[in-house]
């Protein structure tokens, strides 16, 4: 019944054994690489690399299936909208126009546009595994301490930690309250009209908010009494020490970023790879 935190799983792998800070820095470096480049060759390489990392982190497909579907749907909509709003973006970028299909005068599908949108699609797709690896292999407390160590205010970072900590509790309270209110006659099923359902949901939210506020007061008192907010800095119990693995991992990520930038400047003379020229 009582589940552990939603995303984090306690496997042991090379990725798990890295410090949270390493993973955060690695995530930022690799994501920057993918975001920087529009070279489809590099992007495909990164895509393969990030799926390999996913494998290394022992994350199963079933764990990320739902998230993947959401992202895919979102990306496809995004692609459609890109085409609707700027159908000639590729032509502008690559300076050529190979017409493939003419819908109307304005909407002309070109090879350039197709190539641009595929590149963009792959770019986003290759970021997803990186994000998942970070979320699934980093203990929430470690995540918070790494956020703090790269400069996020620790009070804000702790608010994130507490949200994660109390999320299952609030979830449970929601279920209990909703059942008790259903017993009083609140209909949350599809049988009720939309307007009523909205009103009824409010009847559950009010007690949930009040009982959550009660909790918040207790927690903040408990934290004050144990000296939270005393100094501008604090240390973190969950901090993992940096060792060789961490330096190695960060070095690899930095190398990838630098190599990508150098390749772009020297070979492509810009962020884009242009096969049409």
């Amino acid at each position, binding site marked *: 019944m009582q589940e552990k935190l939603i995303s984090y799983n306690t496997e042991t792998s090379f990725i798990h054994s890295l410090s949270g800070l390493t993973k955060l820095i690695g995530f930022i470096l690799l994501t920057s690489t993918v975001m920087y480049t529009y070279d489809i060759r590099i992007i495909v390489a990164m895509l393969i690399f990030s799926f390999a990392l996913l494998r290394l982190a022992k994350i199963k497909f079933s764990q990320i299936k739902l998230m993947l579907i959401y992202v895919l749907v979102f990306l496809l909509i995004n692609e459609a909208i890109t085409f609707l709003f700027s159908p000639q973006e590729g032509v502008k970028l690559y300076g050529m126009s190979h017409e493939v299909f003419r819908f109307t005068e304005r909407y002309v599908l070109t090879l350039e546009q197709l190539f641009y949108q595929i590149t963009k699609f792959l770019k986003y797709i290759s970021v997803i595994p990186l994000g998942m690896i970070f979320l699934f292999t980093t203990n929430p407390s470690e995540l918070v301490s790494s956020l703090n160590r790269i400069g996020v205010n620790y009070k804000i970072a702790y608010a994130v930690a507490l949200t994660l900590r109390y999320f299952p509790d609030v979830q449970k309270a929601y279920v209990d309250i909703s059942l008790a209110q259903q017993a009083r006659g609140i209909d949350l099923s599809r049988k009720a009209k939309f307007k009523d359902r909205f009103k009824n949901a409010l009847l559950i939210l009010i007690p949930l908010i009040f009982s959550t506020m009660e909790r918040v007061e207790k927690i903040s008192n*408990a934290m004050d*009494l*144990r000296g939270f907010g005393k100094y501008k800095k604090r240390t973190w119990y969950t901090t993992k020490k940096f060792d060789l693995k961490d330096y190695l991992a960060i070095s690899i990520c930095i190398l990838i970023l630098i190599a990508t930038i150098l390749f772009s400047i020297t070979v492509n003379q810009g962020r884009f790879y242009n096969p049409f020229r």
Partner: protein
Amino acid sequence: MEQIKERDPIIEFTNFTFQYYTQSEPTLYDINLKIYPGEKVLILGPSGSGKSTLVHCLNGLIPFAYKGEITGSLKIKGYETRDLDIFRLSKFIGTVLQDTDAQFVGLTVGEDIAFALENDNVPVDEMRKRVEEAAKLVGMEKFLKSSPFELSGGQKQRTTIAGVLVDNVDILLFDEPLANLDPATAKRAIEIIDELHKNLGKTVIIVEHRLEDVLHRPVDRVIVINEGRIVADMNPHDLVSSNILTSSGLREPLYVAALKYASVNVESKKTPGYIFTLKLDEEDKNKLKKWYKQGARNDDNDDNDKSPSNSHVPLLKIENLNFSYERGRQVLKNINLEVRKGEMISIVGKNGAGKSTFAKVLCGFVREDSGKMYFNGKDMSDMTIKERAQVIGFVMQNPNQMITKTIIYDELALGLRLRGVSEAEIEDKVKEVSKICGLYSFLKWPVSALSYGQKKRVTIASILTLDPEILILDEPTAGQDFSHYSEIIDFLDTLNSLGVTIIMITHDMHLIMEYSDRTLVFADGEIIADTQPSSVLTNMELVQRANLKETTLYTLAQIVGIDNETSFVQHFIDYDRLVRRNNARKVNFV
């Protein structure tokens, strides 16, 4: 004691008065109190007596989080507290707040213990070492990596205590440490506090209203607070020999009540402060024996007073009920039960024994795997949650989780409005129910103006408007002091006498004894006993399996030399009910 007093006090209140800015009168009046290093002091008082305010003054939450006007002086370790901030104070006084569940800030035990050190910028290596040492003091060193969901109530409390010990404070302040703990865990908590006091030599202050539970282990002094003033500062023997407890709205220990019923003179020289120091002479023992024998005869006649109706069809019948949340982990196993109209039943058992799940299955919140349930002979399996609610009402523990409307009238009317009843009919019903519940004159009030006990009444009343025949209550008296307890439970008793069948899920031994006629003991998803409360409370195996503790009445019976402890306890229950009923007749129910 004497040599302690020669030293300087570690805490010293002088003519100390405190008034919240939001209140028109002071909450604490002219407090004068000295506590010496190494002492173990109990601060006792009913809800609203000012004892929580006193705690907040000590640990610095006043004036840090709650603002008000302070006059007089409060010195801790010689420092005037108004010159200290909450952080400096927290280095002297470590506070263990009530409800350890809600104050668990870390995601693991180790992290939670480390919290104060993290805030103090202690380097990680040193922190790990100190966390482990503190965890060892409370026996939690093997659980450093566990998440709070994997811990029992007692383990959470130990973690919280370690989180305070890690800072090496001089004074340990326990704010209602027993609230929300079952009797066995509460007993264990008092033992841990006692061990820490003995082994570490720290000054220990326990703030509680459950006197009998705290006095499971010795304390140096008891300070009683009522209506913002100190009304007693004495040792437990003098305290229970006086009438201060009753006049302050606090509950006497059960064995003391029994002694008084038997006309035994309770005086300090009998050292009656603890059951384990109680000295009774032959005359006293004879008085108790006589009282017991005399009662045994009278009670027989009285027995039919409140017996349930003897109709052939039980109100509720449950056959071979099984339930599991996930396959392979059965929560309810083969439950068989008959409930007759007018019964008042208590359900006891450890956390996770299946009590709450049982209530959920009855209300239709979750569906049984197999088995049958009949209400008045009618199969309940086709009934929806909404339909079941019309015959079985469920009252949650925390009224704030149930109340959705701002005005009491609307809250009471909600269930009927959602069922499309006409406003005229609703008004009649709400008025009728509010009269029974003593809420009639409050109907136009906002809910927020009510006390906790009154809010509880509102939630019960809002369920009663649907005319359920059975009322299930989850921990109706948890965390309540004697007067709120009495307020809630007398009200339930009145409902019961009007024919409502009542089922209470509870850990409260007083509630079980004083008000229920029948107790069901749940263990590992099964009903392992279904009998009268006195038999449960004097059966050591049941007591242990349900996380209860033996009542001091049982010990008293042994001291006196009465063989049949169960019958002695039963006699106390019957006699006590008679006394209370006679008192209730004198005071009209408002």
